[in-house]
């Protein structure tokens, strides 16, 4: 199975370790992974700001880079959802692009993992992964609970998942919302952090690094000891400390 690795622009530029973890994890699980070097961005920052009409260049580039793979995998629910919903035409890409957690769960169907992470971890539900890609049941719906993220995290040795008062409230990142509506964005982020801290989290994890970038900015400003880690890093971790 040939997997095209899509590393969203802000992960490429600011959190390369998340890309490395994703690549290593997929290879460990037997995938042939290729990273097309000319990739940039899915176009979501422009589209969510009302400029979807400017994203033609990003779309063409995305198709050129990825249309020949069996699967496309990215460690970001948000970028994957954008491609699924807005990359039009008959490229077949929307059907073969997967967020990492759903790829591990639904395509590779993994039942166990060689990973160790002996820490108390709070799981932040990134909205686009949860409500867009249905990585987990949503608290608003009267339906049976499930969580692809929690299932994977439960396979990690030593990891203790903490509970939260609000299981799936948005962190307030929201793309350009984080600066255009700075006051509300920061307040939402502070409230999310407080919920995790109250329940004893050492780490906050999520399937989207953008949420974590925002929460990390708030935690570091407050000199908190709580750190953020993308779920790919935890699933690829061999932390025996």
């Amino acid at each position, binding site marked *: 199975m040939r997997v095209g690795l899509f590393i969203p*622009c*802000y992960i*490429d*530029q*600011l*959190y*390369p370790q998340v890309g*490395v973890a994703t690549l290593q994890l997929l290879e460990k699980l037997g995938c042939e992974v290729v*990273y097309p*070097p*000319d*990739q*940039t*961005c899915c*176009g979501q*920052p*422009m589209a969510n*700001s*009302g*400029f*979807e*009409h*400017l994203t*033609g*260049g*990003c779309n*063409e*580039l995305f198709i050129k880079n990825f249309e020949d793979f069996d699967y496309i995998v990215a460690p970001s629910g948000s970028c994957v959802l954008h491609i699924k919903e807005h990359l039009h035409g008959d490229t077949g890409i929307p059907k073969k692009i997967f967020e990492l957690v759903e790829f591990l769960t639904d395509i590779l169907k993994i039942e166990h993992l060689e990973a160790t992470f002996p820490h108390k971890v709070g799981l932040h539900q990134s*909205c*686009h992964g949860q*409500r*867009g890609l249905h990585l987990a049941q949503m608290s*608003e*719906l*009267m*339906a049976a609970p499930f969580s692809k993220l929690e299932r994977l995290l439960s396979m990690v040795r030593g990891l203790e998942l903490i509970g939260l008062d609000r299981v*799936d409230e*948005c962190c*307030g990142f*929201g*793309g*350009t*919302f*984080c*600066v*255009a*509506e*700075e*006051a*509300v*964005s*920061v*307040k*939402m*982020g502070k409230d999310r952090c407080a919920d995790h801290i109250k329940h004893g989290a050492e780490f906050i994890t999520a399937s989207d690094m953008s949420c974590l*970038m925002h929460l990390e*900015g*708030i935690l*570091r*400003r407050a000199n908190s000891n709580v750190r953020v880690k993308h779920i790919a890093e935890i699933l690829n971790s061999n932390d025996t400390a």
Partner: protein
Amino acid sequence: MTQHKDHAALAAAFNKDEPRVDWHDQTLWWVRRKRDIAASKVPDWEALRETASGIKDNVLSNLSQYLARFEQESIANGVKVHWASDATEHNEIVYSILHRHGIEKMVKSKSMLTEECHLNEFLDEKGIEVVDTDLGERVVQLAGEPPSHIVLPCIHKKKEEIGEIFHQHLGTPKGNADPKFLTHAAREHLREKFLTRRAALTGINFAVAATGEFVVCTNEGNADMGAHLADVHIACMGIEKLIPERKHLGVFLRLLTRSATGQPITTYSSHFRRPRPGQEMHVVLVDNGRSAHLGRTDFRNSLKCIRCAACFNTCPVYRRSGGHSYHTAVAGPIGSILSPNFDMKKNGDLPFASTLCGSCSNVCPVKIDIHQQLYKWRQVIVQEGYAPLAKKAAMRTMNWVLSKPGVYHTAGKTGRWFMLNVPFTVNNGLNAWYRQREMPEPPGQSFGEWYKKNKHEQQG
């Protein structure tokens, strides 16, 4: 219309008092939790939402027929039916009815439509006094403010503040903020109004096309008190409030208050069919932009809204920015997709007052795709030319860099271009990220560079 600050500026002002934001957030979250509990007790909740959505689809697709039928049946019941194409016509119709009867004082139960049409201000200028009889609405009316929430109009006020308003306007003892005492004082105050007013205006929650009757839902019985005591009952509704038959009420009444406040049903769901002997009953059917909205394929299903405000209570942005930051009669996520239809220039900021988290669409009892419409409104607002110039320029630059790998790699070399431009780009000069957050620490190399060194070369 006077120029107003945009949502971001008004929300920033609201956030100056953080403990108050916490209080507001927690109060509304508590209502959201009550909604969850109530909904969980209905075994087929999701099916009920689907059914309601389907009924409303049918109504919107056959609106003209249902309206004609409703009018015909209402007239047969002895009701006088009026049609208003916009807010001005609506206000003039109401005024002409009152004027004809020589009425200068009127009681009014909750009607967001009259807020939308600014009826109170209009009548005030004509010398007619309107007393809002919904307790929450009376509080904000005395305070000289618009409602901040369509179901809980004074949810932004603490009980001590309400005590002070009542002290000033109703003469209650200073410092008394006991909710039971204040409610009793309001009841005494309003009872006198009910008994002496000859006209009562009510809203309409559901109008039944097949029978010409309409249903008004209140928790306080104030619509009934007004309508039953008055010589003239005027009921105003947006043209989308129709349902085909009486049996469909069984779907909507089960959904409405569970979604709104977590109650199984409103305390009073009053059916009005014909005027009692000697009474005049009027129904005013108001378009005010709804036909235009119906013509916008991407946005028409927002007309399904039954005004439960579940989307307000669940919205993490609404809870932390307050209803007044939306500067429209209907705030919250639903207001943000209805209001641009009225005035794209004035309300063009509202679809951006969201993280697109999608919680609103999930709680909506008639399954309006609210967050998808927020996204689509953003596209329309930009296409129609209502985006700030600086944002336009920034987006073009971003697009130019991101659609050219060579430029992207050069520009991104140290992560600096990226950190200054994405998504911080919309912020003109001042770094809104850094004000309350640390910047990410730029790594030594990008993933692309790491891959080139560690993988590409290995593979040869």
